């Protein structure tokens, strides 16, 4: 379903954000290095853990001494750079001073881990997962990356400064970290107690009371768990997440979390499998999960597993407005806190606009070229950047 619309840059006119790039690592780059970017040279005393990013290589290589790392677009011949570095980097324009990046030795991979001017920073816990959702936007890898990522994340937490307003812990399934997750949350609690932490998890492990009790002992001051429930029907939920018994564990987990006073939000991704029973699910949430602080009804992301399962998943959001409106009405009249994520205002019924949020992370947020003249563009959350391939047939600028 290719679109005749082209993506436009986001309305501020900046080039689209990227989070990864790569180049050629040098021999000094032996292990993963985390550091804070600087695009201007720094005095020697301030160079520890800083990664200098520059178009060109300085005349005197000794000028690089003391930096944690060095990135350049220049192709290097046989010069021996004294610090771990990556040359011939394909893109460096997206790297700004105080961004935190990790550079990898084997493939010269440069990943941005943290951007101080973004509201959408993430602690990526693991690619492992014990579910396998049909529409997963971050498909799991069955490789044990937990030790390495935990070490990286703990370093990251140490050097983030100043502390952000909010951080999201995600994956894969963060609870697979076990004790390591507790270490990460404890670090967040101790180092940046004012930062609100939201953790995305399938919640299944919380069915085991012992785990929930341990988790509760961490006493993070501002913590919320975002847990998906896709149906009131166990078989349907299990099918969506591709795991038998997941529904039962998730519901039991939600109850244990509530028992220990931990804050939870329920998330529902809207697609052809979840939409038919959406109103029943809303009623189920109200009657069985009355304690949830928030319910997020979310538009489908066409990335990860979603494209290959699109045959079973696709429904034009315009075509489910009736169920969406009924579900939102049901929840909101009962005093439940509801939001709609990832939907465009031209597709949503007018009564639902007040529930719509600008939810898409900046680095993957675009508007289509047809959106330019739209009167409510500022208010509208726009699209995921992969929406150019697939989106509602009812997109139109409103006047």
């Amino acid at each position, binding site marked *: 379903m290719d679109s005749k619309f082209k993506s436009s840059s986001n309305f501020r006119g900046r080039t689209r954000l990227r989070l990864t790039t790569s180049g050629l690592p040098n021999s000094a780059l032996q292990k993963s290095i985390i550091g804070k970017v600087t695009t201007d040279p720094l005095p020697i005393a301030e160079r520890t853990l800083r990664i200098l990013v520059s178009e060109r290589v300085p005349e005197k290589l000794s000028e690089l001494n003391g930096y944690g790392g060095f990135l350049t677009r220049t192709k290097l011949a046989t010069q021996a750079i004294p610090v771990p570095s990556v040359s011939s980097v394909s893109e460096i324009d997206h790297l700004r001073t105080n961004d935190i990046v990790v550079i990898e030795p084997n493939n010269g991979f440069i990943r941005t881990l943290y951007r101080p001017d973004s509201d959408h920073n993430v602690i990526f816990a693991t690619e492992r997962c014990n579910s396998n959702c049909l529409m997963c936007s971050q498909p799991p890898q069955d490789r*044990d990356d937990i030790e390495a990522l935990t070490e990286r994340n703990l370093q990251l937490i140490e050097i983030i400064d100043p502390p952000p307003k909010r951080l999201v812990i995600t994956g894969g399934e963060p609870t*697979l970290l076990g*004790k390591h997750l507790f270490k990460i949350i404890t670090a967040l609690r101790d180092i940046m107690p004012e930062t609100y932490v939201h953790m995305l998890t399938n919640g299944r492990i919380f*069915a*085991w009371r*012992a785990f929930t009790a341990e988790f509760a002992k961490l006493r993070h001051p501002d913590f919320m768990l975002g847990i998906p429930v896709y149906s009131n029907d166990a078989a349907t939920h299990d099918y969506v997440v591709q795991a038998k*018994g997941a529904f*039962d*564990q998730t519901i039991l987990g939600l109850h244990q979390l509530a*028992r220990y006073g931990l804050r939870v939000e329920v998330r529902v991704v809207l697609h052809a499998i979840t939409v038919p029973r959406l109103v029943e699910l809303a009623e189920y949430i109200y009657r069985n999960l009355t304690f949830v602080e928030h319910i997020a009804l979310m538009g489908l992301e066409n990335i990860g597993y979603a494209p290959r399962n699109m045959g079973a998943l696709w429904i034009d959001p315009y075509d489910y407005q009736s169920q969406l409106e009924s579900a939102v009405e049901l929840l909101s009249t009962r005093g439940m806190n509801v939001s709609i994520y990832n939907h465009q205002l031209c597709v949503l019924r007018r009564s639902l606009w007040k529930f719509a949020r600008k939810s898409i992370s900046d680095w993957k947020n675009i508007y289509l070229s047809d959106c330019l003249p739209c009167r409510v563009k500022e208010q509208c959350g726009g699209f995921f950047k992969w929406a150019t391939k697939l989106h509602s047939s009812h997109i139109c600028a409103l006047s």
Partner: protein
Amino acid sequence: MNDDLEAISSGPTSEFSATVYLDPRIFSREAVLKASYWASGAAYVRIPESHDGRFVVEVELKQKVPTLSDPKPISIQEFLKEFCNSLMDFELRRQIEAETSKVRELILAKAFSESGVLEDEPPGTFVDPVELQKPTSLVQIIAPSRPSNQ
């Protein structure tokens, strides 16, 4: 449940009374008594001794003439229809009770017990493919008494 209609044989014995015969293979004593209890609102109910094994219920409508507060008293035919419905409903309720009373007691016991005392173990397992191949400390957190190689 169509047999029930033959299991109930009822005939008005007058404009205001009737005798109902019930097959005890279809209707339990409990259903008969409960339906009779509710019938005793609008009628006088007698359950005399039976000579052929069937339940016998004699009913006589209390209100025979219209009054200001009840200008259209129920007829014996209407009453018998409702009585039959009531019998079938109470028989269903008996079946429900027979099948669910233990679970109901369990639910109430769980509701009023000390936190966690009567709680079930969660169903299924939690692990992902990596954990399955090489168990880690995760399992210990879930079940502290279980050794990690199990």
